[in-house]
């Protein structure tokens, strides 16, 4: 009798726990869903007055003029440009640091360096932005003799600082989790350490590294404070590495406070946010796909 009751009690407790966890999972998903819904609800109305092609491919962003022009091509290109240039800096640095930490460094060095690299991620973006604005910009300007230090290159450099920890830390995890047998087998066959890294460990960890890179890139694309402070903010299509640019997050952050509530400008900023959301969503979907397709299951699938 009593044992039966405990059994029931345990079962109902199981149920309750499962229910609670389901609720928690549901809460975060619902929040995300509602945010997306709100984003679309506030962004779509702009397309009543501007066509989608004019919005996405329009070259001029003059949201407060009369008549206003809402062309976000310069903003999109700026976002893509800073992401590409910052990736060109952060991917080699991040991935190579990861290889060093996982394969080259002694345990003691690794113990010290990895937390320091991860600490970089803890630097508030406003601090990095301030650093870029006050210290890097004047140096760049004097060193390269360019009109202004607040430009595409400076912003990319600062963004690279921000994505290196993500890329390095996640890649290092991926490399470190390559099964030891693979490495040992390769070494036993007479391959050098370098050959083992290049032909065995790198292919085995490629999916993890790709995921790391893409997450780092999506962080660079969505980052707001740094580009707001350092990119210069000129809404023109960049023609050189040292042109000032205005990526999408900077534009949204700078203008939202002053845009009259539910005006065209307000809708246009939300529509810009939709485009930005689609970009980062695409990045995440691609990362997910890659990590699924090339997922290494055990040591045998290589």
């Amino acid at each position, binding site marked *: 009798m009593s044992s039966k009751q405990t059994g029931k009690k345990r079962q109902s407790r199981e149920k309750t726990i499962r229910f609670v966890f389901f609720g928690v999972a549901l809460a975060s998903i619902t929040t995300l869903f509602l945010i997306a819904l709100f984003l679309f609800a506030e962004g779509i109305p702009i397309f009543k007055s501007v066509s989608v092609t004019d919005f996405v491919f329009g070259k*001029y962003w003059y949201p*407060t003029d009369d008549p206003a022009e809402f062309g976000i091509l310069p903003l999109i290109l700026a976002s893509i440009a800073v992401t590409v240039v910052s990736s060109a800096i952060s991917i080699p640095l991040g991935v190579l640091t990861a290889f060093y930490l996982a394969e080259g460094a002694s345990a003691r060095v690794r113990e010290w360096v990895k937390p320091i690299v991860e600490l970089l991620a803890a630097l508030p973006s406003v601090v990095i932005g301030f650093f870029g604005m006050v210290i890097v910009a004047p140096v760049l300007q004097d060193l390269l003799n360019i*009109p202004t230090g607040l430009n595409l290159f400076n912003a990319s450099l600062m963004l690279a600082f921000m994505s290196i920890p993500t890329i390095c830390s996640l890649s290092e995890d991926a490399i470190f989790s390559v099964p030891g047998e693979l490495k040992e087998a390769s070494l036993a066959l007479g391959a050098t350490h370098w050959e083992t890294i290049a032909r065995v460990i790198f292919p085995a960890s490629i999916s993890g590294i790709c995921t790391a890179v893409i997450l780092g890139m999506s962080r660079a694309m969505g980052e707001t404070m740094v580009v707001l402070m350092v990119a*210069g903010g000129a809404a023109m299509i960049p023609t050189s590495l040292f042109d000032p640019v205005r990526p999408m997050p900077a534009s949204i952050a*700078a203008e939202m*406070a002053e845009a*009259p*509530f539910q005006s065209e400008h307000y809708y246009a900023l939300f529509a810009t946010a939709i485009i930005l959301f689609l970009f980062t969503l695409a990045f995440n979907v691609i990362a997910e796909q890659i990590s699924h397709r090339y997922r290494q299951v055990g040591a045998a699938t290589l």
Partner: protein
Amino acid sequence: MKIKGIAVVAFFVAALFAANMAWAGNIVIKGSTTVLPIAQKVSEAYMKQNPDVKISISGGGSGNGMKALIDGSTDIADSSRFIKGKEVSLAVKKGVYPVPFAVAYDCIVPVVHPSNSMVNITMAQLKDIYMGKVKNWKEIGGPDRPVVVISRDTSSGTYEVWAKKVMQKERVYPGALLQASNGAVSQAVAKNKNAIGYIGVGYMSKDVKPLMVNRVVGSAATTLNGTYPISRPLFMFTPGWPKGDVLNFINFVMNPEKGQKYVAEAGYVPLY
């Protein structure tokens, strides 16, 4: 046990309500960051004289102030521009009738790096610079350096005044660097010897050099006598004609002996 708990909760709820009643003299001010320093200084003085009135102030921009005014979440909306037609119709639709009070003047001054030899600039030259026509300072009698144009975000009140007074229906060219605040413009100009920007006279510092416009120095005197060309009134809007504490506060702000003293302290130009 349970009843006791409920009683305690009920007591706290009642206490909260009572506290709310006691703070009936609350004034909420929201809006333009340009007017914010004025609102802060005046409110501090007002609260010192009227300890039973609590004033809470937040910035967020003229647009946000108007939003708050329209949806009834503020008693006073600070604005660095006059209310827009669309905002008026939105307000009237909700039964709110915004009333403007000009509380101070702002005077916007073009600034350059201290090493720049320019002293005076004309309105036409300013317009050409901001249209991207002037590429080098020597074209308008300055040193042989490229011109870096720094402007404010297109939605800021300061930009609107600049666009109206200086640009006169022409556009600031897309290559201009846009900064989000007076402080950021000042910072960017101070760090770049090629730069020109514009800031409110209240933000003037030793790190940047003000230029005369059409041979008139931007100052309180020239703003009030109308000779300085780039100036604007600053407003506080109330929903309907103010009453009670809000009326007292607005009267305090407008009083030349009281509120207007703090306008000058905040770096703006008082009405009188």
